[in-house]
């Protein structure tokens, strides 16, 4: 039979206009960092420099916090809730209007496939603003507690895996509830946040309500410890999250954390196997596995383990790895050299500890950061690849005999962010969902997100929820 190859289908980059250098967005304007220190952001698929980014000094952070404080006191707290909502609606609309531009830019800066930025990241980011816009003038009806009030100035630090989407998860609820914001995007993916600053300008958002400062971990640490910040929202690693919790332990700052995970994707023997295989693939290979809620541990019931693994291998052979801007690409570039090295190190630990590695044949591009979709079978609970978050396209396969054993193994982790359940039996879904210690459970589906759906973790996966009515609680103070 003739095999039909895909012709290249690259998305045009002419829609984006990347400046050679970007300033900080403080008080409604782009300004140069004090001292003029800069760093580069690169395209991880080509290793080519995209732009020079300003490195915010401590005094720049001070200025951003001062601008946000001023905006909170003088403008935003005096803006009526329905008017606040209308600004958010405007932002949502502009994001929709400029969606293609954002999708291409995100794909270039992050390395993720255009298919995902176009169909997931950007539409969901716009949806988050649209959803929260509607809450702004309904907070009294939301049952948040007695006398709910905004915190004031919120410091927000976001990761590189869903840059614009994480920005929207942070900024939309903060503004809807009447807070002002100083946000720091990740060091390797600042471009869509800076483009978002332009959206704020186009929307006519009052100056200082949103401030965006670029830098690294030290910039974030200075922001966290800043006395002008009343609340911190952080998405990132559990290690850094714990560090923030320690740093503010002696203060009255509020804190929400969305941290790591080691999600168990449980396939019972009565599951629809073909559908489960699709769910396993999207669970771990979506966004190169750079997903805190990835289904990175596959728990297979013993009597179907072989069948599922074989089907999974066949399916994995069809995954197209390569140019993120190609519309047919399934798996893009690893976001950075450092992340690639971490994935390589943990995978090597999997080999060394006796698990069996398998990847499909595929040709990886010569430049950029790449890792083949990979599964490890014969993984035990004690293996590092069963315990530590790899944050890459690497799946650990573990087997179980009884539902009780599945739950026990699934919960045997300090994390508690997500889990998946595959079975055709409704009562087994509810039985499992009740026992899994995880904040988000996908039954017969995986990696679905929506602004109306609360997201967040149990145990060491974090504090609080983002999205839905529950997510609003993170941004208000109530009598306790």
């Amino acid at each position: 039979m003739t095999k039909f190859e895909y012709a290249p289908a690259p998305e045009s980059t002419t829609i984006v206009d990347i400046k050679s250098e970007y300033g900080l967005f403080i008080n409604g304007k782009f300004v140069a960092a004090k001292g003029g220190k800069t760093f580069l952001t690169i395209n991880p698929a080509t290793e080519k420099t995209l732009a020079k980014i300003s490195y915010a000094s401590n005094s720049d952070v001070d200025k951003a916090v001062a601008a946000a404080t001023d905006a909170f006191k003088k403008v935003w707290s005096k803006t009526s809730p329905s008017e606040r909502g209308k600004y958010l609606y405007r932002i949502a609309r502009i994001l929709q209007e400029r969606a293609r531009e954002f999708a291409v830019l995100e794909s270039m800066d992050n390395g993720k496939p255009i298919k995902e930025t176009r169909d997931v990241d950007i539409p969901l980011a716009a949806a988050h603003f649209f959803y929260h816009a509607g809450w702004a003038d309904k907070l009294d009806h939301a049952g948040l507690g007695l006398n709910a009030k905004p915190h004031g100035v919120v410091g927000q630090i976001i990761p590189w895996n869903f840059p614009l989407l994480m920005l929207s998860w942070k900024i939309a609820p903060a503004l809807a509830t009447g807070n002002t914001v100083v946000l720091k995007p990740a060091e390797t993916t600042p471009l869509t946040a800076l483009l978002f600053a332009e959206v704020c300008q186009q929307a006519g958002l009052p100056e200082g309500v949103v401030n965006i400062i670029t830098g690294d971990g030290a910039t974030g640490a200075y922001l966290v410890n800043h006395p002008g910040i009343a609340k911190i929202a952080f998405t990132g690693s559990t290690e850094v999250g714990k560090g923030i919790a320690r740093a503010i332990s002696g203060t009255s700052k509020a804190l929400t954390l969305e941290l790591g995970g080691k999600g168990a994707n449980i396939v019972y023997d009565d599951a629809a196997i073909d559908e489960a295989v699709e769910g396993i693939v999207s669970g771990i290979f979506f966004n190169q596995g750079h997903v805190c809620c990835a289904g990175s541990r596959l728990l297979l019931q013993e009597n179907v383990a072989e069948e599922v693994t074989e089907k999974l291998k066949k399916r994995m052979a069809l995954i197209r790895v390569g140019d993120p801007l190609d519309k047919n690409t399934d798996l893009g570039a690893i976001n950075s050299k450092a992340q690639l090295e971490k994935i390589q190190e943990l995978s090597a630990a999997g080999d060394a500890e006796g698990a069996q590695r398998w990847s499909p044949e595929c040709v990886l591009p010569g430049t950029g950061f790449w890792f083949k979709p990979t599964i490890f079978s014969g993984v035990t609970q004690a293996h590092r690849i069963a315990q530590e978050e790899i944050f890459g396209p690497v799946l650990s396969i573990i087997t179980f005999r009884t539902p009780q054993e599945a739950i026990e193994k699934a919960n045997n982790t300090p994390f508690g962010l997500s889990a998946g359940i595959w079975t055709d039996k409704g009562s087994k879904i509810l039985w499992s969902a009740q026992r899994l210690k995880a904040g988000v459970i996908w039954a017969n589906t995986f990696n679905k997100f929506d602004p109306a759906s609360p997201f967040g973790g149990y145990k060491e996966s974090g504090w609080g929820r983002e999205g839905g009515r529950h997510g609003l609680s993170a941004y208000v103070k109530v009598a306790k």
Partner: protein
Amino acid sequence: MTRIDVLKTYKLFINGAFPRGESGRVYEVKDAQGKFLANPCQASRKDLREAVVAARTAQSGWVGATAYLRGQILYRASEMMQARKSEFVDALVAAEGKSKKAADDEVLAAIDTWVWYAGWSDKISTIAGSTNQVSGPYYNFTIPEAVGVVTIFADSKSTLLSLVSSIGAVISTGNTCVVIASEKSPLTAITLAEVLATSDLPAGVVNILTGKSAELVSWVGSHMDIDAVDVSGLSKKSEADVRLAGADNLKRVHRFTEIKSSQRILSFVENKTVWHPIGV
């Protein structure tokens, strides 16, 4: 000849039993006039560990019980307390120097607080849960679930009322707890344990320790099997210590002042969201 009263030996309350502290240490508690009252146990790190093991072991059964049953057991505690009302009033007057009227008010309010939290057990998910209208063919709902094992540093300002409020809020949703009684006025807590021991409450759901809270703060903060802490009874300084050490396993740490507050309940639940496709 005057009769010699039979005095009570105050012990710890762990896993439904009243053991002495393993270290054999006690400390002296005096009444409001400075007269000797009792030698309660000075709980050690090991006692704390035993109490956490009891609480952890009891948790799956307690959260697995129906909310209706949990509500009835909390209500039962109010019945038991009503029956022993005068004992609590006398204790508050003698030990804490409260007026008869103030003590009476506090005990009655405490009884009513049990009733209040009893009624919450099967309503909290109605208030705090939701079905979420996601943009796609999925049924999506969120339910609050007990966070697990909670340590309560009891407030010393109202040793009975705030204690009942702390415990009632925490256990109504299926959490289990380890209470560190007020260091200065610990006896009401142990008398409360006697109420709980006769309220059909499964062993280990509530455990009560007496002792030096400054000593126990660091052990509570660093204990990796405690999920959350109510620090209402601690100073800001000790609260910071619990938060600092508690970051190791991201303990949920909260302070309260309101007595009847749904926030007390909501602070010790985790919200779980479940997705399922809709289709034929």
